């Protein structure tokens, strides 16, 4: 059983080691780009089968976002939808034999959490102005300022660790079960892992949306 904290190096570009997770991520990016290009080439008013599936997915995500946040204020559907589709695919890709999810590596989830962290502050400053946004940290009381700043950091950290922990423990559990019994027994656990993969993608996306919504809210409700 490999160490979950040390990345599996695939090859080197000069002095820079490229891990398997990065290669898989590139593969997912190319796959998604190809998929988008192929399915958006000829869009029609009377949607065909594949276009209907895509429309259901996109309107579903849009519904979820508009329930949480006023879409007229800041338009960040592209960020949220990209996060969801990417994380979902990255979590599910370990069904394919020989591949392992890039989200089961701490670096990938750290990158995703950092993107969320900066977009929260960007959106907050854009909607309230720099001073107004900084002032929202001192509400309801200036004594709580250290805790507010601390909560900003810890919630990013826990987003990162949550996705990593769930994905990595799923793979780990599968490895342990396969070492004991190989035939048929892991299948229910694999189905559970598929469910958890989609649920974690949903939770990461919803949390990112809730944090962004809290940043642009007039009264600072926090999380």
């Amino acid at each position, binding site marked *: 059983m490999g*160490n*979950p*904290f*040390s990345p599996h190096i695939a090859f080197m570009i000069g002095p820079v080691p490229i891990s398997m997770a990065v290669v898989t991520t590139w593969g997912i990016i190319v796959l998604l780009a190809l998929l988008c290009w192929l399915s958006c080439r000829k869009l029609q008013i009377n949607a065909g089968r594949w276009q209907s599936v895509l429309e259901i997915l996109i309107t579903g995500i849009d519904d*979820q976002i508009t*329930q*949480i946040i006023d879409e007229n204020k800041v338009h960040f559907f592209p960020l949220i939808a990209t996060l969801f589709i990417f994380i979902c695919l990255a979590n599910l890709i370990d069904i394919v034999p020989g591949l392992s999810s890039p989200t089961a590596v701490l670096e990938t989830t750290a990158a995703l959490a950092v993107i969320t962290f900066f977009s929260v502050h960007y959106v907050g400053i854009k909607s309230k102005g720099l001073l107004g946004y900084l002032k929202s940290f001192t509400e309801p009381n200036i004594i709580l300022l250290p805790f507010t700043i601390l909560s900003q950091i810890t919630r990013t950290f*826990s987003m990162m*660790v*949550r996705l990593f*922990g*769930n994905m990595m*423990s799923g793979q780990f559990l599968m490895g342990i079960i396969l070492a004991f019994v190989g035939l048929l027994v892991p299948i229910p656990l694999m189905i559970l892992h598929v469910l958890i993969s989609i*649920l974690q993608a*949903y*939770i990461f996306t*919803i*949390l990112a949306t*809730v944090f962004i919504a809290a940043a642009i809210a007039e009264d600072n409700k926090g999380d």
Partner: protein
Amino acid sequence: MDLDLISIIVAGFTVSAGAIGPALSEGYAVGKAMDAIARQPEAAGPLARTLFVGLAMIETTAIYCLVIGLLLLYANPFVG
């Protein structure tokens, strides 16, 4: 006892202690959400979303314990 053995035993205790608390509280939260949905079925959508976000928050403690356990096993700074 050497440090390796202590680390393994403590990792087991960490994960077990970290599993009990979140399991109890997640059961409580889901039970309350079921009560609320049974009382007001039309509010199931927002309730489910809030429930998932809350469960994710509760689950964080369990995952911290898991990470501590894994650090003890694989990346222990006190074991050479």
